């Protein structure tokens, strides 16, 4: 199934404000608390690092494929959704996610991941810089993406110099 829109991340635009993160935990659990966020900002001002980490809704999704009880399904937007009725909390999906974007909810012992907010991602709404955008394929500008990666890697290399 192909989704209509993709949640895209442009780390070089991220200011580290964590508004996306806080909004995500507010929306899903009614709390401010990063262990409940489905998006996490790796932020280290001393290293000059602000990287949003969030599920990319892989097409051939390792989390889903590795789930032995088939607790992860794809919704009509392409979001990989965890069915907590089925989920046995083995946390295999957390381990196999190549992006580290499937997190542990320490309260339940079960995974939490981005569900695209049912089609209205609150993180993208709160992000003022365009570091997170919910884009349709037509809106995705490959040249912009190329430049974004280039600038980002350049910044990483520069930091070492």
């Amino acid at each position, binding site marked *: 199934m192909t989704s209509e829109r993709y949640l895209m991340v442009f780390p070089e635009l991220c200011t580290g404000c*964590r508004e996306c993160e806080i909004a995500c935990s507010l929306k899903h659990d009614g709390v401010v608390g990063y262990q409940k966020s489905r998006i996490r900002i790796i932020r280290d*001002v001393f290293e000059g690092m602000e990287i949003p980490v969030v599920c990319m809704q892989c097409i051939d999704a390792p989390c889903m494929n590795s789930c032995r009880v088939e607790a992860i399904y794809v919704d009509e937007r392409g979001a990989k959704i965890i069915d907590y009725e089925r989920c046995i909390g083995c946390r295999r999906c957390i381990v196999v996610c190549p992006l580290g974007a499937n997190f542990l909810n320490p309260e339940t012992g079960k995974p939490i991941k981005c569900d695209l907010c049912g089609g209205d991602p609150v993180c993208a709404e709160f992000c003022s810089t365009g570091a997170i955008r919910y884009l349709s394929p037509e809106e995705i500008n490959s040249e912009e993406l190329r430049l974004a990666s280039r600038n980002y890697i350049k910044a990483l290399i520069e930091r070492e110099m």
Partner: protein
Amino acid sequence: MVLNRKLGIIDLGKNRVLVREIPVELRKKHLGGRGLNWYYLYNSIRPDVDPYSPENVLAIGAGLLTGFPALGAGRTQISTKNPMTGGVGDSNMGGAFGPQLRLAGFDHLLIVGRAEKPSYILVRDGGIEIRSAEHLWGLDTHTAQKVLREETGDDRAESMVIGRAGENLVSFANVMNGIKNAGGRSGTGAVMGSKNLKAIVASGDIDLVVHDPEKLLDYALEVDRRARNTKWAKTLGRLGTPLLYDVSYTTGFIGTLNWQYNTPGEDGKPLEAENLEKYSVKMVACIGCSVHCRHRVKIREGRYRGVVTEGPEYAAIGAFGTGVGVYDWEFVIKCNEMANKWGIDLISLGTTVAWAFELFQRGYITENDTGGLRLEWGDENAVLELAKMIVERKNVGNVLADGMLKASEKFGKDSLYYANQTKGHPNLLTDERGIPSFALGIATSTRGADHLRSRPGIDLFQLPEETLERIYGHRIVSDFTAYETKGIMVWWHELLYNVVDSLGICKFQTVFNSANSPRFEDYVPLIEFAAGIRMTKEDLMEIGERNYTIERMFNVLNGFSRKDDYPPERYFREETKRGLPFMKGRKLDREKYDMMLEEYYRQHGWDENGVPKRETLERLGISEPDYSILEVL
């Protein structure tokens, strides 16, 4: 719950820690942050307490909305008795500490006593521990934070730390979080140093349960967008506060060569905001802020190659630029980095250094005092060397480190004429001579000369009087060179900034430099949806009044009165020499200033001597301090 964060009381001398609830009634009277800090300090610091004695208390507070995703709600308040003035010492810091403190389970900390050895306080998951900091003593503020983060094993741990300046009790040492977030003013870092307290670390993740998350999210987004989409916030997000420099130096209200001039004129061109762009790596933000007003800067070549820091702000341009006659961004960036690592308030440092340069020019300070260093305007080396002397308390630096009041006793009384200060607290490098409302604001500020207690930035826009009346609820004269009604304007901003500091949100996202930014009434829904407390705009204004009056009473009990509410004498005697016609040849008129001051007192319900009247105290429910808060220890 948002309202279940605790108060931690820590006695470093007795090695005791107590955890207490914060009653909702206190929230309704003071909100949190700055307001609650001062409720606690008013009732715990006796007038005879020396700021450096173990009996002085340091209060740390998160605002009621700290940690929420809107309006720069990442702020922390640090309050204590000010070593420079002996009155209110109070500082509001951005960054990430406050939100982390709340997630660690606390909203307020009260710290008293003096640790026997260098120590730090670890606030983690609802508990508080006092730990040894002997291995951290002597470290700069950045290194200390990195070590602490390693030590807690939590990459989200946030610390507020002091550097060399705080350890050496430099009276304007600050407290730092991250690269540049500073509890900058009022010598809070020196008070930490006097307690042998190197750092406070917050770590943990206790969810803040919100009253009505759905409504909160909708409203937060709306109000956040409104704040970030003002013209002011958009420009700020691109250029940072240096944008203010372009206005102030072209028109003529930036202190130059220690206020002998009010602008460097063309010489100052290299410091224009756009010229910072080439050093900027990206813009970064405090937690909960979508305005992102700070640059991450890097110098890639030349004599300061490899310097990486955040900022610099407008204030740094004055402090290490116009104040001392150096007009070079790279130098400003370098000094900015050094000040942040030393943990020293760069505003006070710059103003003190500029003062010392003028005292050298006039012969009050000689080479004998400086170890042979000549304090010549425009000499970068002399600026940096003198700054180091202050931080390390060497030569004349040892005298300057004690603050302008004490230092002037050594240099000769009339040296104080050249010090831009009120109540002994150095002003930032703005020249307020042509702008009476700004002058009143720095003079009446409870922490001593400072722009962030009340500066009505929008006064400069000369908005139509209907607009002003809509904002202020009073007739306000549009002309910014007028004195009439400006006392009311300053009063209104004092209340607003107090509420903002008590909520933990950012002043740049309230009515400060943009008339369209959110104000009192716009905070009402945020408070309700976040904390479940219903209030009106009038309630909030009354809280601002109550909180501000408590600070005023703290000063009154410490001997302050009308005599301490005047800007530097120089502003009354010397005319500005440069600038555009409306800024040139300006000085303050004493008679008119007095009228403005009295109007301001009347508006507050204070008497002619600036002392809150009995009926005002009764109306606001402020009683005599009972000094009971710390008795539980």
